[in-house]
């Protein structure tokens, strides 16, 4: 059997791949991925869209700067190693040579990046209970790594010096940083750039669950970064033209070759056009049901809610969740049963608890709601307790340091009881009156959970609010909690309306 003969470019590429300096940086990249991206994503809910957000945020902050720096190092090789004359006397054009060097650099960078993507996706697949791996984040991430590398390569080729590589790495860090902060909306004037930056805040806990995430923004981002990449490759192609300066541009064009110049100009123009088009498209983006929609790219069919059959558990109070959150159902149901038992028979007591979508409030540049998110509450006839992933269950995801199950359970019960005691969801700040706080505290104690910690805002930063201090509230709670369950239940049945209206004072609690 004869071996497959490799073409010339493939053989050059093989040598470059074998001897690439990037190979020696793979352990560092892997370590950064583990400590930063993998540990971070382990604290996210096992929802595909949520976990895949790390591909374009943390992982890019790990890979991007080194892609830029190492590519700059490779590109400056000819200048540092004084092989310019030797290579100039060969027939293969400079752009072909550089492409092989860049290709080898990208080979190891992307191989490492994709291996890390596989680690994230395999870990998610082992835990996710619904849906499948999204591919657009991979595409965006790959293009991002390539763009960082090409930026660094261009800088290294144009300025071959020993300081170019670390300066390119610093530039990579800054690009990733500025993109991230633009996405958070730190710079209001940069909103279109913010949309085009693949960096994002952690998406809502149910991103891509109730509604499909439209690929509009991902397409624009790929187009934008791809345009930058192609444009820079055009610049690299034209670089030899500008190096021959002793007789001016015409001499440079003549020496470099007319077709090469045409190709370089075409690449540069195509890149600029693509990037400008993406910028224009991103400028037309508007908030959609699950992210940002760009009218020219949007498929209206993707706005339809994703059909599902909820998973339910619990007898005293059935708790129903979208199947993507089935892993948390037993804990959620177990947490709410004792609390529901305290409320059973009371006017407006919920007959069911249901996880609903985070809704369609005002979002920041990457779809993170910061206003208008529905609050957990009891509503409807028959009354149903609605909670959402971010407000109700997010703390259950935990963090790289571990999950505080007891803390989550107490918090989940507190939110449930507070929603019932306070009445229908209110717009504005969540402020329970002292009497309401005392009742919730007493009920929490009655079901064996620790006394709740209300935020400082609830008590006005320690100042006297509504005529009560923390000590007074605690005393009233203890008093109310010392009643028998039947007496407590009867009092609540009789005074629930007044309690919800906020007209009861601490002294009026038994």
């Amino acid at each position, binding site marked *: 059997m004869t071996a497959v003969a490799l073409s010339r470019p493939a053989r*050059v590429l093989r040598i470059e791949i074998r001897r690439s300096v990037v190979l020696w940086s793979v352990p560092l990249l892997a370590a950064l991925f583990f400590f930063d991206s993998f540990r971070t994503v382990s604290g996210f809910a096992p929802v595909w869209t949520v976990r895949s957000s790390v591909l374009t945020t943390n992982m890019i902050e790990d890979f991007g700067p080194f892609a830029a720096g190492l590519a700059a190092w490779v590109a400056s090789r000819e200048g540092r190693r004084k092989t310019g004359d*030797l*290579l100039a006397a060969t027939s293969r054009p400079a752009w072909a040579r550089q492409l092989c060097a860049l290709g080898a650099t990208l080979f190891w960078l992307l191989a490492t990046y994709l291996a890390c993507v596989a680690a994230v996706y395999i870990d998610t697949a082992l835990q996710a209970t619904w849906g499948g791996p999204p591919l657009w984040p991979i595409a965006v991430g790959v293009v991002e790594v390539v763009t960082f590398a090409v930026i660094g390569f261009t800088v290294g080729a144009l300025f071959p010096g020993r300081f170019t590589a670390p300066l390119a790495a610093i530039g990579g860090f800054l690009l990733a940083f500025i993109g991230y902060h633009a996405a958070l909306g730190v710079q209001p004037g940069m909103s279109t750039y913010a949309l085009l930056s693949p960096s994002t805040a952690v998406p809502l806990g149910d991103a891509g669950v109730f509604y499909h995430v439209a690929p509009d923004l991902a397409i624009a981002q790929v187009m934008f970064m791809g345009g930058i990449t192609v444009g820079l490759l055009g610049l690299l192609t034209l670089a030899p033209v500008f190096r021959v300066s002793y007789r001016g541009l015409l001499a440079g064009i*003549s020496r470099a070759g007319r077709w090469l110049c045409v190709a370089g100009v075409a690449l540069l123009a195509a890149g600029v056009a693509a990037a400008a088009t993406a910028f224009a498209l991103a400028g037309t983006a508007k908030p959609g049901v699950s992210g940002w929609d760009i009218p020219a790219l949007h498929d209206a069919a993707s706005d339809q809610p994703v059909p599902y059959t909820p998973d339910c558990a619990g007898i005293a109070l059935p708790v129903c969740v979208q199947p993507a959150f089935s892993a948390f159902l037993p804990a959620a149901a177990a947490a709410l049963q004792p609390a529901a038992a305290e409320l059973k028979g009371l006017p407006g007591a919920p007959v069911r608890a249901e996880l609903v979508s985070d809704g369609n409030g005002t979002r920041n540049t990457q779809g993170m709601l910061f206003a208008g998110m529905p609050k957990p509450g009891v509503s409807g006839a028959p009354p149903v307790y609605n909670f959402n992933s971010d407000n109700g269950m997010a703390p259950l995801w935990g963090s790289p340091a571990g999950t505080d199950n007891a803390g989550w359970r107490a918090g989940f019960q507190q939110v449930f009881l507070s929603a019932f005691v306070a009445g229908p969801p209110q717009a504005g700040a969540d402020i329970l009156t002292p009497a309401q706080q005392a009742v919730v505290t007493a009920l929490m104690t009655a079901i064996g959970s620790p006394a709740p910690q209300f935020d400082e805002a609830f008590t006005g930063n320690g100042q006297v609010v509504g005529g009560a201090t923390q000590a007074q509230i605690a005393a009233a709670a203890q008093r109310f909690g010392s009643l028998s369950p039947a007496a407590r239940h009867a009092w609540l049945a009789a005074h629930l309306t007044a309690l919800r209206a906020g007209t009861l004072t601490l002294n009026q609690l038994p």
Partner: protein
Amino acid sequence: MNIELSDITRRFGRNVAVDGVTLDVGTGVLGLLGPNGAGKTSLLRMLATILPPSSGHLTLLGRDPRKPADRREIRRRLGYLPQNLGYYPSFTVVEFVEYFALLKEMPPHLVPKAVAAAIEKVDLGPKARAKLRTLSGGMLRRVGIAQAIVNEPELLLFDEPTAGLDPEQRVAFRALIRDLGQTATVIVSTHLVEDVGAACSEVALMSNGKVVFRGTPEELTARGEAGQGVGDAPLERGYSAILAAARSAS
């Protein structure tokens, strides 16, 4: 003629490195002598198509290097060893020579054999898999020679090829270029007159950018006997006599 130079000049700012050189060279070995700063390296770099001339006309292998397509074809048939050889320390000997064979657009199926042959010709077979960073200066020079000859070029340019070679290797190198000169045009720029005498069929002597002598080594020797040259060897005396005459004329 593989090389046709007609009134070639090369300037670097106000410095005229090569001044109106006219030279025709065919198959054989031409030794290029001259003191430091005579313009030998600049001339060689123009012949290697790295540097365009400031004025004059240059034809290499019947082609005009000003045209990109012709230049590319020339480079396919060119072997060049610069004075300062740059290299990539992590490459092995085989990889380095193979890299240049591929950059010279040799047919891929011929590359492995050509690389092996080139490495054997410079007697680096046992070191074929060694990384370049582990080689001595002389061995690196031989690697440089190997990459220059791997594509069996029709035009070979060597700038100080024997720097760092031990005497035995220098003898081997002279035999090699005599052999190469049977079918190719070989130009060897060197300070070592004994290399010129042993290997070259012709000698050109440069001074201040001009070619002040063109002839055979015997003719150079004769000029030393006739003039007031100094040196231990006949060629050295011829060399110094011609230079002295050139300086007094200018």
